[in-house]
């Protein structure tokens, strides 16, 4: 099925709405801080069908896939949108959709689609990296009940979440999802201020939170596979954001280079500036193709998801280079707070570190090389 037309429509609606909300000037910025009325914006996102884009139609959502969510994520990067979309609609719905059928699951999906409930999903360890052993939380038996222990940092949108979906290892060693209200006793969600003012993170600490068995939701298929998929979704959603903000930076830079004159001509007519802009476009073109290939792999639930690892590291690395070039080519103006270019640079650099750094993904890719080399040695016939 060809979604090209639908994607284009979604893209142009999103671009218009988000640009209107941010009131972004052509210089690329203005979004130095979060908008004043976040509640109203969230309601608007729900009315547009965005919060429930991946929620099944029967539960009030649009019944679309991550490929469509990716379009929105990219546009939110382009306008450096500040909203709990990532935590709720990407991570929250992504988790719920992987769970086995359960009435609570359906209520949650419906509440997200209508904009009534905001969620956060702690996936990272205390450094904000992928945890060594699948999930950063443990469910332990305690008398007749269960208690939750663990810590996760840099959890997107945790401070504003009404509920948390905590991926934890149950007493049998299986990953499960624990749904808790944000104000549950023993659960602490502490805001973690960062330089990028468009994003909200929280540290989530569970210190023996009492968990009723009704709050434990099981994954539908292989739970380890489900957690990997959640992680890949988280990584790719950040890559989408970085691609969008890269595109915004190129557009702003080209427009500035056409209007700003020095030595009696637009600076964009100088080869040094022109070639720097060309380099930005080349990187964006490669990033876009790599990312759409990775999104296809993710949606197809392809076992080989090397493109996902590559897209996260490449798109997020180049986004920092592109935002950096944009600041450089804007000259002194680019360095001012009011130009807003810094907002993009900070968000790009944050994205690069969020959900696994380029070094982390390179390491994971390289494990395949070492494995391949070992296998080749083993299959060689030993000398007589």
């Amino acid at each position: 099925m060809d979604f090209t037309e639908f994607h284009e429509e979604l893209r142009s609606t999103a671009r218009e709405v988000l640009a209107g909300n941010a009131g972004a000037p052509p210089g690329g910025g203005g979004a130095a801080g979060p908008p004043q009325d976040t509640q109203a914006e969230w309601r608007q996102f729900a009315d547009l069908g965005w919060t429930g884009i991946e929620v099944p139609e029967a539960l009030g959502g649009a019944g679309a896939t991550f490929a469509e969510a990716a379009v929105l994520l990219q546009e939110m990067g382009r306008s450096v949108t500040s909203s709990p979309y990532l935590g709720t609609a990407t991570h929250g719905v992504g988790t719920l959709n992987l769970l086995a059928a359960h009435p609570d699951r359906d209520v949650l999906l419906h509440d997200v689609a209508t904009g009534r409930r905001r969620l956060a999903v702690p996936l990272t360890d205390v450094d904000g990296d992928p945890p060594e052993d699948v999930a950063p939380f443990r469910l332990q038996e305690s008398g007749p009940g269960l208690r939750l222990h663990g810590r996760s940092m840099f959890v997107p949108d945790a401070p504003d979440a009404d509920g948390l979906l905590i991926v934890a290892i149950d007493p049998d060693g299986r990953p499960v999802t624990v749904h808790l209200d944000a104000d549950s006793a023993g659960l602490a969600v502490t805001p973690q201020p960062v330089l990028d003012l468009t994003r909200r993170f929280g540290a989530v600490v569970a210190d023996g939170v009492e968990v009723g068995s009704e709050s434990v939701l099981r994954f539908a298929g292989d739970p380890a596979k489900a957690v990997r998929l959640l992680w890949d979704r988280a990584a790719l959603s950040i890559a989408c954001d970085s691609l969008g903000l890269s595109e915004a930076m190129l557009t702003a830079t080209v427009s500035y280079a056409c209007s700003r004159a020095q030595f009696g001509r637009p600076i964009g007519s100088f080869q040094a500036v022109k070639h720097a802009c060309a380099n930005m476009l080349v990187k964006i073109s490669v990033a876009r193709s790599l990312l759409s290939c990775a999104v296809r792999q993710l949606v197809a639930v392809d076992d080989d998801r090397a493109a996902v690892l590559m897209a996260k590291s490449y798109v997020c690395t180049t986004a920092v280079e592109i935002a950096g070039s944009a600041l450089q080519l804007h000259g002194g103006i680019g360095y001012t707070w009011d130009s807003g270019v810094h907002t993009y640079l900070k968000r790009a650099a944050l994205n690069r570190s969020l959900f696994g750094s380029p070094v982390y993904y390179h390491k994971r890719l390289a494990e395949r090389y070492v494995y391949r080399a070992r296998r080749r040695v083993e299959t060689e016939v030993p000398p007589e």
Partner: protein
Amino acid sequence: MNDSSVEQDGFRDAVRTWCRINVPAGWRQAQTGISDDEFVAFQRSWFATLRDAGYAVPHWPGEWGGGMSIAHQIVLFQELAAHDAPRLVLAFVGIHHAAATLLAAGTDEQRQRHLPAILQGEVWCQGFSEPDAGSDLAALSTKARRVADGYAVDGQKVWVSGAMHADWCLLLARTDPDLPKQAGLSYFLMDMKAPGIEVRPIRQATGESHFCEVFLNDVRIPAAHLVGEENAGWRVARATLSAERGMTMLELAERLGNGFRWLLDTCAQPRSDGERAIDSAAVQDRLAALETEITGLRCLCRDLVERIESGRAGPADASIAKLFYSELLQRMTDFGAEVSGLAAHTVLQKPRSSGWESGAWMLDFISSWEWTIPGGTSEIQRTIIGERGLGLPRGS
């Protein structure tokens, strides 16, 4: 990277089986240190083998012997690369540049005459650059004068790859010196056996000599061998360039993907002390960055070809692919040379008929400039991308 519908139709298995039977065993050794005649004979026979299987011109329209879907072409190029098949070097300009030109701008008669002939092994070269017209190609001064039954051509071409083996030449020449630069050029099909053509090979940085100077002294070209209108040569050359570039890139990107496996093998070779480059974290990081870029190139080329096919290609798309490919080839072969150390410098010859990444890393590295300079240097590509792709103002 793989298209699931194609994976199910058995095409990949068919190509694999074909490769196992048909890729000549030991061709790399056999093609190392050989004469031009042996190289030409090998290329001709490999071309015929591919053609008989329907694999030589998959990108041509079906009526001329091609008609393979893009997804199938990708599988074909992947498998040819994976089975280390020789590349079509001699036929390259014919099946890509000449065919794209004839299909886009040629007359029915020209197509009838040449497309089947190319399938029978007719070899082509491209005479565009001149000593004083490199990056500024439109400044070329080779003149084609009107004579009774056609044109008489005088001038000098340079960097004509494979001219010594070519039967025909794609020629750009000036038909009206009074019109401004681009406007006075015409596009010709020139018979290389015509009197008045002298070919002199140039020795390149690698020591090989496939580029040539071509001297044209009152060479007669019949009027029927003009492609497009007189003085419309620049338009013909530009129109065919991007179509041709997308198709060649598809193959080259898959070759580069396979070349990465050679690079992994190089890094897995134990040195005398038993240490291997691949066990170093620094090497692993650079390999992963390269693999990422190569995969990006493969995705980019696939998207590019799909856009060309559906008429949605942007004005700078071909330049973006060429620029990224050529500089990535240079980075990868450079890394191959670095990681192989002094051993790379003891490989004095690379096999002919191989890809741009043969595993003879030092020679591969040097020959990578054959991609960053010809066909528009990287600097020219960046200017094209800035002006046509982004709409930046031209320099004064």
